[in-house]
């Protein structure tokens, strides 16, 4: 998944971009002059020119570890190969002895007669041809702000040209020194700055301690976005409102194409009708299934219409570290119960296209249990009403108030399906009628004879004690459109399923690609405020498991 930046407001020479540039220049000038400068710099540093270039950086989601209305955690891959440049102007002391004397104590100074006479030279430095490539770990929590960390050194190369280009010694020195500074900027100062800025925006106490206006901590505003790619990455969207065109700020945050809606509708229908036809979502894969067993194959490339490219590099893992402490306040407290389903879910679809699998290891059978287990029905007292079809409209899919937050029970042993018992979680009175919550329970190992839907799924053995994160969608935007609500709910369910699957040791036989596509689309639209393209790049070796 990649981001689609709307870079044109920065490249066109309209008033907003010039306002942005002048604002950015003044911010940068202030930041450069705030800290104590080395003694060789004898004047303020001015930002002479700043241009972000014609091309946008590429940002790609590698992993979303946690997603809720008030928190987010993910890993991105960023690469930039554009034509941005920055020109700085200052004055430097060209006499090294003068600089030396300014730092040495006067009592032991050699007190030269005139050898330390100053010579200030105006210096102009242009930084251009940035080549950036790095992994960004972004953790957002409304209470703790944004934590942005570069996992590696993002700076690949950088061209420094200055007034002293004709003197190789100084040119090399400047190149080396500025590269070092820029690396430090990315790895140390930028995370700190982003963190402070986010605290200023969302933490009223911190902002009050600074004596600043508290930005209205509207939960939806920072994560609202639209698919037009108006935002930068999540950080920029949060911290730099200038990057977001103002005309998008109040539009509904989710825009679905007719095609996708139709696909989703078909998917929904297939669930109702036990159709064998399963729609697929292209270019989306859940990494834990695809790569959990090393080179083990999964049932992902079913249907044969996906190019048989190796999917290993394209897969992602939902991080499972540090998630155990995530707060329970979530919209996902309403547990979806399993909707009537059939093999048309074709999780993995291994049986349908076994011949396309060439990398498969020994396949295991999985059963999609379409009936509630006893455990789940016990633990979920609300799930005792017949389910109805999820076609009702909703204005909000957010958490029903008062619903008990409870993790779904994880079946430890295969539970053989009982006759379908539709479940219904009573809808909360505060929200409108959408109460159709479906639960899909995957159980394994499964006897193929016992299930309605039997799938051949290969999944890696994993340790049961491993705690898995929960992935939750933030569905904060009310919408009166039926399809929109439905899609939201569907995406919600997808996440439930992820969650359940993660609890069950990441053993997922497969899923409908289209569903995953929509999940990610949902995440993009609701959680990140950015548009996502469907391009998937090659994951780096560090992310291949």
């Amino acid at each position: 998944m990649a981001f689609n930046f709307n870079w044109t407001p920065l490249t066109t020479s309209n008033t907003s971009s010039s306002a942005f540039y002048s604002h950015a220049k003044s911010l940068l000038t202030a930041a450069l002059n705030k800290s104590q400068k080395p003694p060789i710099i004898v004047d303020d540093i001015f930002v002479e020119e700043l241009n972000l270039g014609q091309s946008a950086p590429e940002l790609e989601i590698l992993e979303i570890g946690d997603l809720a209305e008030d928190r987010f955690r993910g890993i991105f891959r960023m690469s930039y190969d554009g034509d941005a440049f920055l020109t700085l102007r200052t004055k430097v002391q060209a006499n090294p002895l003068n600089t030396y004397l300014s730092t040495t104590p006067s009592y032991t100074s050699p007190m030269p007669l005139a050898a330390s006479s100053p010579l200030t030279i105006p210096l102009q430095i242009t930084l251009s041809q940035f080549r950036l490539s790095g992994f960004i770990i972004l953790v957002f929590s409304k209470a703790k702000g944004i934590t942005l960390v570069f996992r590696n050194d993002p700076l690949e190369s950088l061209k420094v040209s200055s007034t002293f280009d004709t003197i190789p010694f100084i040119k090399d020195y400047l190149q080396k020194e500025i590269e070092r500074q820029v690396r430090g900027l990315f790895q140390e100062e930028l995370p700190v700055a982003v963190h402070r800025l986010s605290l200023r925006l969302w933490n009223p106490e911190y902002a009050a301690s600074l004596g600043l206006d508290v930005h209205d901590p509207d939960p939806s505003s920072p994560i609202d976005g639209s698919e037009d790619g108006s935002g930068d990455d999540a950080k920029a969207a949060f911290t730099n409102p200038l990057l977001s065109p103002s005309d998008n700020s109040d539009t509904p945050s989710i825009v679905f194409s007719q095609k996708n809606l139709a696909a989703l509708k078909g998917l929904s229908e297939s669930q109702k009708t036990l159709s064998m036809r399963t729609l697929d979502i292209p270019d989306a894969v859940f990494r834990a299934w695809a790569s959990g067993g090393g080179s083990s194959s999964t049932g992902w490339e079913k249907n044969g219409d996906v190019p048989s490219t190796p999917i290993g590099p394209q897969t992602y893992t939902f991080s499972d570290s540090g998630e155990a402490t995530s707060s329970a306040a979530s919209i996902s407290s309403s547990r979806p119960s399993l909707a009537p389903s059939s093999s048309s879910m074709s999780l993995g679809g291994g049986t349908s296209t076994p011949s396309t699998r060439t990398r498969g290891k020994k396949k295991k059978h999985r059963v999609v249990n379409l009936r509630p287990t006893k455990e789940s029905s016990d633990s979920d007292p609300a799930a005792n009403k017949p389910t109805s079809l999820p076609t009702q409209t909703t204005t909000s899919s957010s958490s029903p108030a008062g619903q008990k937050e409870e993790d779904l029970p994880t079946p430890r042993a295969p539970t053989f399906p009982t006759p379908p018992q539709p479940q219904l979680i009573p809808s909360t009175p505060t929200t409108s009628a959408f109460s159709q919550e479906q639960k899909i329970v995957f159980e394994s190992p499964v006897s193929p004879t016992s299930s309605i839907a039997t799938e051949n799924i290969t999944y890696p053995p994993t340790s049961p004690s491993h705690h898995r994160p929960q992935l939750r969608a933030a569905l904060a935007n009310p919408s009166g459109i039926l399809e929109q609500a439905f899609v939201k709910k569907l995406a919600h369910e997808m996440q439930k399923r992820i969650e359940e699957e993660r609890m069950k040791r990441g053993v997922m036989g497969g899923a409908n690609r289209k569903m995953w596509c929509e999940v990610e689309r949902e995440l993009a639209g609701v959680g990140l405020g950015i548009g996502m393209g469907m391009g998937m790049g090659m994951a780096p070796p560090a992310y291949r498991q």
Partner: protein
Amino acid sequence: MLTYMDYVQNAFFQATSWNPDNSYVNLTATARALLDFPTPRGLKMNISSLSTPKFGTSYALGNLGVVDGSVSYLYSSLPLHNVRRSAEVDLHDVTTGYRQLAELRPPDDERFWEVWKGGLRVDGRNALLFGRMYLPTSTLEALYLRRVKPTTQFRITAVSDGRLKSGGTIMAMMQHDFGKWSGEYLYSTDGALIGARGLYNFGRDPRKQPNPPPRTSDEKAIGRFSMGAEFYYGILNKSAGMSTALRYTTLPTHPNAPTTMTLTLTPLMGSMSATYAIKAGDAAAFCSRFDFNMYSYESDLSLGCEIWRREDVEKEDFAGVLKARVSQTSGIGLLWEGRLKHLLFSVGAAIDLRRKDQLVRAVGLELQYSS
């Protein structure tokens, strides 16, 4: 105004017949005294005493910051009988101004320094030890000065300060003065800086012609040309610096007003500086300086003067001196130094006309008492 400890050090130089003027560093001493004099800042008090001819103490208290001060001790192996109390000290000895250079004198014959007792040589080398602790910053300054030979002086200065990079710095310097020429070689632990500087006096060699020839009426103006250079190289930071300078000064036997002219060049940095100073009578001196950098075209013109005020016209006694300077870059400086009863005082201000918001940069009063 010189601090008491600087005054005692000068007394030590005088007692050991060391001529600090014959050094490249002091080639432009006149211009610096008239154009670059420091102005006091805040209130500062010094109480000093040479309790014995060999041991002196000084306490300073200031209000820079909250309260700061320093405690100094000095030991000289040579009894310093030429140190005067503040009530009776000659103001010329404790202030800097136009420096009238004397005729060069040859270094002492080493045999005169020998002291024999019972067939054994018992003479030692005179040394001076000095230490000053600044409070509350806990900065320690130390000085060790040793007259190794009549032509040689060894000098070690050290600063200990926790805020410095390696906790402190030591500089060692060997100084030679042969009259005709002098040289200094130094090493500093800060950046492993090495340096050398030398001064050569054209004209008579005092070692060969100990006494100046009698002046004849048809002889042209009597003066002295001196030329010198300095070179520094920081081994660790691989940086170098150098300068060269030329000076012409009239000697006391010159019939006209004493004049000093210098020309300083820093070839690497492209800067040059020319000064001209003249002493008009006993009570006034004027100086001008022009700085120019041929690389950056930066220039500066400085003017300064000192005017002495007589306490009593007949007694040749001076009550104080007013110094003033004006420069394009550093603004205006005013300083009034004098004696009030037993106290030496120094009042000054630095004014920068270019900054309207902060016209007066520094105002200060410094008081000294010594017994």
